């Protein structure tokens, strides 16, 4: 749009036609008070605080909903404006309880700040004030609706960003009440953002309630490592503890929002289950020892077991995907220095010869601009909330979204089609789509596809991919252990190339991208995670591994690691029974926000962070532990003074995910497939220990969903135990598929 000039307070300012006045004043740094306006939400113009004087208009105009015109003359500071703003301020304050001293928003309250400028010291209101009775809206958000000034930011957040209008206004006039429509309260995975958008203390953080005043805390920027977004956050700390987390603006990553997982997982840091001191196992008994002693013990164990016996290839390293870039790098470097290539972070994969290797080649912000999306095997809303938010934005601006899933999930946008397909059939369906696409471009049909008869569904999916100018194909977590995983990835890759689509691989979460970049995968002579456990090594170094949640076969893994002659060094932030069972040394390492390092998000963006707080008690950052261990082993090249030096050593070349060229397997089998998906708030140890998160409905997910036919085949009924998880029979699950979504360990073997 063309640039036009307007006059604000006598100064000429250029702006774009159609912009709202408040956007211009904000850019120019002219202060206009506001409550209901939020740059990422629609305009409501209901607080009336931003009234300004526009020459020619009979009444003062709200800056948030006044589009600018060429030659417009605006006064933001004259008597008329001040009178209107003071009037509105007086109205806002008459029914607002002046309980700032006990309000958690005190000190960061927009109403408080604006009242300093526009409020009066004495109230003329001598009538009774409005009181609103609060209901419990869930374990994350505390309400004090008497303080509400009805700006409806939370309502608009729900309707526009969260995708479900959970909060709404009921009643009218003075009785207008902002409350959840349903008695169950707020359940959105992004609900915590309502706390951020609330300008007053009506919605505040429940876990943080009454703990501190805002001015007591230090704010340190950090990166949330729970998912592939790497949301930018601000950790607010007090006396060496993280006390609260709020979102930090970064338009290319998380805009101004963060997921509840990012916001509330910090609670786990102070959990009583933290591993706080180094321990060694002597004659089957655990003993707390000093770091020197523990590291000495670890070093001796390694040298005795493998290094001095010339069996370096009997040493293996396994890490969970939440490790930082630096930790991945140091651990693999240590292993490669001593001559072992048994390195792996892909612990949850059933068959490492058959994996979903697929490049991601679209930016997060770019997702907003696509016109067609094909999602395969993912529930992005709960698994990657911020990626889902971008998809929702794309959907709202007209993108069509197709889904191929094993079960129907709640999407918070309109789907073009939701295809519930048996896991065994997904590869075949994609093959159908590919064939149609190849036919459309008159390309040669490979032999593997020649016999396929395409179904109508495939036709529709193919047509939309062909029609779209800018489409993206998203491959999700539910496909990682599909019997035809690598074929699925190959087919997607082929379809994407044929249709000029971009791809997004969200099948491995947290900091997996860093694992790939640092080549935390077996070398040519090395063994992968499954092979290591199957052959049985003599020594292991485990970085933040919790076997019940991280391994695809927990019981087998624990059995392999518990072998008598295996020397296991475990570095963990939290205590874990299984870890204690198989380890010989347990080294307490720093958790999220306690260590410096880097996270790599889905678009390959490296985001480094400093430690917000130092780790509690005797706990050390893992990169330091690894460095000292390497020094003790007298390995060269570990002279790092800080983690930044480690970062700079890591070449940016990295490891590319090569699409496998295994033979395509699209044969439809009849076996039952079990997809084990940790509940969204059980993806890592920290969130598993965050009590408020665990108390939410999402945190409580614990069910094995299957349809009647599958249940009959498996001879289970509703509420029976399947893999230790209660069975839930619903017809929204594909045939021959069990979808286990749980926050607890599973029992038995998949």
């Amino acid at each position: 749009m063309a640039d036009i000039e307007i006059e604000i307070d006598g100064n000429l300012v250029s702006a774009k036609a159609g912009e709202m006045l408040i956007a211009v004043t904000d850019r120019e740094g002219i202060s206009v008070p506001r409550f209901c306006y939020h740059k990422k939400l629609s305009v409501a113009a209901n607080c009336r605080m931003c009234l300004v004087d526009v020459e020619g208009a009979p009444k003062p105009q709200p800056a948030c909903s006044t589009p600018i015109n060429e030659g417009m003359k605006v006064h933001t500071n004259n008597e008329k404006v001040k009178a209107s703003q003071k009037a509105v301020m007086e109205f806002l304050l008459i029914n607002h309880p002046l309980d700032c001293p006990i309000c958690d928003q005190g000190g960061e309250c927009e109403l408080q700040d604006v009242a300093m400028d526009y409020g009066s010291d004495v109230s003329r209101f001598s009538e009774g004030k409005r009181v609103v009775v609060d209901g419990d809206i869930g374990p994350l958000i505390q309400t004090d609706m008497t303080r509400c000034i009805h700006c409806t930011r939370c309502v608009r957040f729900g309707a526009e960003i969260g995708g479900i209008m959970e909060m709404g206004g009921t009643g009218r006039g003075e009785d207008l009440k902002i409350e959840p429509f349903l008695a169950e309260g707020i359940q959105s995975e992004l609900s915590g953002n309502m706390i951020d958008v609330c300008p007053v203390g009506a919605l505040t953080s429940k876990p943080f309630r009454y703990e501190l005043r805002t001015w007591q805390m230090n704010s340190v920027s950090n990166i949330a490592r729970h998912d592939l977004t790497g949301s930018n956050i601000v950790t607010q700390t007090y006396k060496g503890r993280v006390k609260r987390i709020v979102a930090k603006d970064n338009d290319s990553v998380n805009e101004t929002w963060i997921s509840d997982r990012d916001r509330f997982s910090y609670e786990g840091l102070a959990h009583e289950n933290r591993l706080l001191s180094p321990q060694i196992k002597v004659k089957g008994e655990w003993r707390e020892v000093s770091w020197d002693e523990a590291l000495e013990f670890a070093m001796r164990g390694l040298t005795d077991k493998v290094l001095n016996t010339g069996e370096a290839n009997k040493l293996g390293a396994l890490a969970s995907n939440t490790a930082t870039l630096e930790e991945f790098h140091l651990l693999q470097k240590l292993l490669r220095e001593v001559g072992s290539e048994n390195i792996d972070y892909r612990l949850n994969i059933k068959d490492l010869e058959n994996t979903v290797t697929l490049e991601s080649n679209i930016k997060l912000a770019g997702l907003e601009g696509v016109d067609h999306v094909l999602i395969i095997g993912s529930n992005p809303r709960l698994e990657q909330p911020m990626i889902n938010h971008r998809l929702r934005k794309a959907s709202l601006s007209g993108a069509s979204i197709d889904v191929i899933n094993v079960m129907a999930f709640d999407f918070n946008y309109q789907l073009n089609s939701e295809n519930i397909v048996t896991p065994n059939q997904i590869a075949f369906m994609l093959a159908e789509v590919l064939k149609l696409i190849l036919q459309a471009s008159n390309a040669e049909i490979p032999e593997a596809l020649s016999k396929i008869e395409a179904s109508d569904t495939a036709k529709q999916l193919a047509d939309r991919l062909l029609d779209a100018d800018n489409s993206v194909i998203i491959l999700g977590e539910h496909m990682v252990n599909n019997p035809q995983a690598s074929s699925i990835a190959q087919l997607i890759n082929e379809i994407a190339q044929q249709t000029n689509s971009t791809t997004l691989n969200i099948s491995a979460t947290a900091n997996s991208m860093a694992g790939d970049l640092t080549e935390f995968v077996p070398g040519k002579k090395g063994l992968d995670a499954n092979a290591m456990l199957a052959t049985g090594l003599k020594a292991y170094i485990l970085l933040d591994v919790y076997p019940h949640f991280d391994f695809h076969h927990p019981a087998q893994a624990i059995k392999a690691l518990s072998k008598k002659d295996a020397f296991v060094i475990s570095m963990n932030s939290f205590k874990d029974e299984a870890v204690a069972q198989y380890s010989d040394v347990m080294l307490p390492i720093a958790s999220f926000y306690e260590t410096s390092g880097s996270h790599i998000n889905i678009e390959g963006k490296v985001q480094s962070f400093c430690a917000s707080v130092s780790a509690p008690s005797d706990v050390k950052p893992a990169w330091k532990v690894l460095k000292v261990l390497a020094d003790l082993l007298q390995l060269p090249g570990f002279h790092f003074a800080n983690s930044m030096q480690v970062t700079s050593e890591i070449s940016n070349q990295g490891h590319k995910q090569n699409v496998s060229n295994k033979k395509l397997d699209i044969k439809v089998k009849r076996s039952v497939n079990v997809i084990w998906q940790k509940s969204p708030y059980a993806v890592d140890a920290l969130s598993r220990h965050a009590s408020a998160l665990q108390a939410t409905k999402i945190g409580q997910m614990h069910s094995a969903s299957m349809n009647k036919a599958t249940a009959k085949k498996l001879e289970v009924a509703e509420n029976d135990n399947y893999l230790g998880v209660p069975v839930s029979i619903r017809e929204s699950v594909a045939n021959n598929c069990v979808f286990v979504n749980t926050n607890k360990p599973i029992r038995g073997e998949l």
Partner: protein
Amino acid sequence: MINNIKKLIKDFSLSELRGGLKITAKELINKKITVQFPEERTPISPRFRGLHALRRYPNGEERCIACKLCEAVCPANAITIESEMRDDGTRRTTQYDIDLFKCIFCGFCEEACPVDAIVETQIFDYAFVDSREGSIIDKAHLLEVGDNNEQMINETKLEDAKYR
């Protein structure tokens, strides 16, 4: 010359000694001004800022709501407060310490308090004992001071209220 003679006369007539004895004699019969502390006390202004106290409402509920404004305003960083949500849902302190070595008795805490919980009493003859830690008075102690002196606090605050 003449001055020297005058001085001689003055010295030999013991006039200065007599002048001194005169005052002594007068003071022997005059009213004494020495105050026998601690049995006797000088009057103190109601605005005097002495030892701190935490007050309660008449129903026994402590006034302090852990707003931490006193902590924030304290120029000497003498106050330390930790807060929590009490079981009945109200905001309360779990710790309220004043370091009397750090305190400069400026009275800002009292000014900042929105519920008149922290006050400075007229007590100045407190003695804190042997150690550094002894100088820190905690919540229980502060409440005790308040409980024991509620009447005095009430009276002095009422008296001072006229001038505020």
